[in-house]
């Protein structure tokens, strides 16, 4: 099963459950209070997921390591390498 199908399956399960409860399609006599909670649920879920995404990406950008030392080490090694290679007869 492709990821697309997995997603479609997941979304359709959620939509079906939401539809059944909100419009009481199975005549379950769901109390009015529950229905009022359920019908705006998809929007809540989207908002929560959006917030989670922004928070996660923001946190990860903020904590993205800057490898200052690695860059300095590399620069030093480049100098060393150039000297050594010149000694070994390399013409740049």
């Amino acid at each position, binding site marked *: 099963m492709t990821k697309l199908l997995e997603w479609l399956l997941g979304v359709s399960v959620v939509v079906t459950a939401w539809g059944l409860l909100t419009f009481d399609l199975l005549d379950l006599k769901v109390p009015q209070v529950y229905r009022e909670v359920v019908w705006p649920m998809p929007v809540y879920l989207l908002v929560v997921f959006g917030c989670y995404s922004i928070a996660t990406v923001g946190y990860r950008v903020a904590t993205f390591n800057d490898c200052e030392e690695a860059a300095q080490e*590399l620069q030093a090694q*480049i100098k060393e390498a150039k000297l050594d290679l010149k000694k070994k007869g390399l013409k*740049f």
Partner: protein
Amino acid sequence: MSYSGHILPPCRWQYCAIQPALPLWKQIIEEDHRRFIIPSNMASRKSSSKRQANKDKYSVLLPTYNERENLPLIVWLLVKYFGESGYDYEIIVIDDGSPDGTLQVAQQLQGIYGAHRVLLRPREKKLGLGTAYIHGIKHATGNFIIIMDADLSHHPKFIPEFIQKQKEGGFDVVSGTRYSGNGGVYGWDLRRKLISRGANFLTQVLLRPGASDLTGSFRLYKKEVLEQLVDRCVSKGYVFQMEMIVRARQLGYSIGEVPISFVDRVYGESKLGGNEIVSFLKGLLTLFATT
């Protein structure tokens, strides 16, 4: 009217072809070889006990295009770290007809380090990355293949860690990751970090690939696994690397990760424009729909 012939600068290839110094540098290198014969023998004896116990050989594939500045440095670093850790290795340079004379530099390096360490498998013109790997694998004698960029953004110091990781878990693939542990980047501004993290998050949500760095291209593969994967992957550019990992998961291969520091191009420029982003998204959606 041979006027135009004077106006147009001669191409670099022509320059090289008429350079009379060619035999000269060969001589220099041969002399150098003689001088270094004793120390290199000693070095191999010193690490031979380690090598006997360990028959693994690592082939490093370096696809290059206009890397004449970087190639000697990356090769030097590879020789350094492989020498220190004592693993058997070879470096396969796959140059796609660089007009800047990368191949000539590679030939010099072969003269310095020996034809069993530096192998040249050039191609006439720029063909895709995937076919460069196929081309390299064909000539590789190692049972493991290491793929990395030749522009110094991937540091060979991590290779012994990759090998260690592979041995610990018997992994089919070991991937370098900028996104977890001590991994990181150098030379990226906020915009680039944001795009990178955002793209990575989106990919994680949509594909759930089980690896934290999908677009990085610093990886170690078992040779037969890489052969399998390259056969199945069709994308280009960033997406190619992503597809390799996603397909690896799909085929049930195990993936280990090693945090790496990614130092953005020292020489030359790296690009991340609108085009890259659009083609990345297209590739992501294609993988989303097909894997």
